[in-house]
């Protein structure tokens, strides 16, 4: 078997004396779409930041494609793409210029950048808005631009930190489906963080539930066709784990 695409071994992260992630061990295989579920404050973003190389673990090892994402800054250029909770578009760039950002980092020629960016904007339904500045776009449109930006570099790993939680439900549902289709079509390894059980079940091929501080409470691979009964049973189990968590906090 090949090396895992993302590998955590006994990873802990402390902020001062506060433990956000505790001895987390985890493997994510290439091409898998993993939903990571947990309550607000359980350390999901911290874990995410360690995969993204934005934070360094206090102890333990994080490996992405066999490399250290925090130390090997240049090695990862073009290899990881991120969709954040908020769109994080550069306000001084138009939609298409924002999508081109990652391609500029990779020194792609201008014509190729523009063509790629335009094709992703078009796929996300934003043709005609390419020259709009972010302030002129709605929240849903802005998040679409940021998804296009993430896909445009064709990185093999896609990280998403609650990307639809700031959108209204209808927009979020539609975007979630489009997103899942794009991930499958493009054979990405995706780590999708969420605090919504429904979102985790609808997007993940594998669902991991985290307890606070981040430790694995449940790790379940979903069958290709999840029956509504099966989904309901799993939802109940996850609900149970999360509410047990509440009792632990209160007691």
């Amino acid at each position, binding site marked *: 078997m090949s090396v895992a695409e993302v590998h955590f071994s006994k990873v802990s992260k402390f902020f001062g004396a506060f433990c956000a992630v505790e001895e987390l061990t985890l493997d994510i295989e290439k091409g898998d779409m993993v939903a990571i579920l947990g309550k607000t404050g359980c350390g999901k973003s911290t874990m995410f930041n360690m995969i993204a190389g*934005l934070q360094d673990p206090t102890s333990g090892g994080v490996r992405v494609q066999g490399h250290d994402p925090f130390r090997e*800054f240049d090695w990862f*250029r*073009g290899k990881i793409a991120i969709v954040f909770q*908020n769109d994080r578009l550069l306000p001084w760039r138009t939609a298409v210029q924002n999508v081109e*950002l990652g391609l500029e980092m990779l020194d792609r020629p201008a014509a190729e950048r523009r063509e790629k960016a335009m094709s992703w904007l078009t796929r996300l339904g934003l043709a005609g808005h390419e020259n709009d500045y972010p*302030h002129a776009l709605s929240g849903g449109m802005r998040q679409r631009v940021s998804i296009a930006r993430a896909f445009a570099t064709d990185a093999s790993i896609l990280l998403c930190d609650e990307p639809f939680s700031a959108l209204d439900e209808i927009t979020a549902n539609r975007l979630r489906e489009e997103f899942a289709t794009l991930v499958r079509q493009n054979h990405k390894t995706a780590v999708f963080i969420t605090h919504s059980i429904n979102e985790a079940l609808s997007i993940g091929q594998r669902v991991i539930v985290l307890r606070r501080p981040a430790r694995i409470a449940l790790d379940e691979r979903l069958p290709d066709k999840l029956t509504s009964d099966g989904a309901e049973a799993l939802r109940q189990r996850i609900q149970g784990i999360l509410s047990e968590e509440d009792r632990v906090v209160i007691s």
Partner: protein
Amino acid sequence: MGDSAAQSATSKGVQRILTILAPFALLAGIWHFASTQLPDYLVPPLDRVFWRALAIIVDFSLFKDVLATAGRIMAGLAGAFVIGGVFAVLMHKSRRVEDFLGPILNFFQGIPALSWVVFAIIWFKHIEARILFIMVVTALPAFSFQILSALRAMSKDLVEMVLSFRPTRAKMFRMLVLPSILPEILTSWRVNIGNASRVVVVAELVGATGGVGYRLLEQQQLFDMAGALAWTLQLVFFVLITQKILNLIEAWAFKYRAQSERSL
């Protein structure tokens, strides 16, 4: 129909110009009234000041003094901007450097321009070196603190977003840092040009044999009020023109910003 739109645009333009000119017209009116009541050597008539100011602009042997002073202002500000930029980046990167440089710059801020004139005369021999030193050292604290605060105000979200693409240092600067801090940089230039144009005439007391400050001293010795005003006006024009240029840069650089239809 295009005609009437064009017409209303012109009339709006005219109205704007009138609004801008109104306070100056009032000032001129008061001055004119005073000039009819008081002797000419105290309050010279407006037309005489006007012709004297114009004479400076059209006569290159005089106008070169205006250019010399403008050059000193810009050289001093450019120097202070570069050094202040380096200080700001260092302070932004390291708490230690900030704890060290911050108090020194604050201390400098409390020293009057005239004290620097004295120090410059003692420390430097060359006249232009003295002036450059004074101009740089008086603008340095403000530039350092303004650039530092611009760096601090950069959005952490955007920094992380750009970092996630693993940019080179140069790209990070060009794509994120520069556009983020540009608004505050332009404001700091606006403020510092105003300050520097007041400091420069003091700096020119170090023995300059040309420049607006030198010419002002000359007018004082001649007891020539119209001349003193005419030279002062040159500096005021310089400030107004540079501010106008900065406004144009700002309008061009920030066309991406949302405009509220209602103002505060």
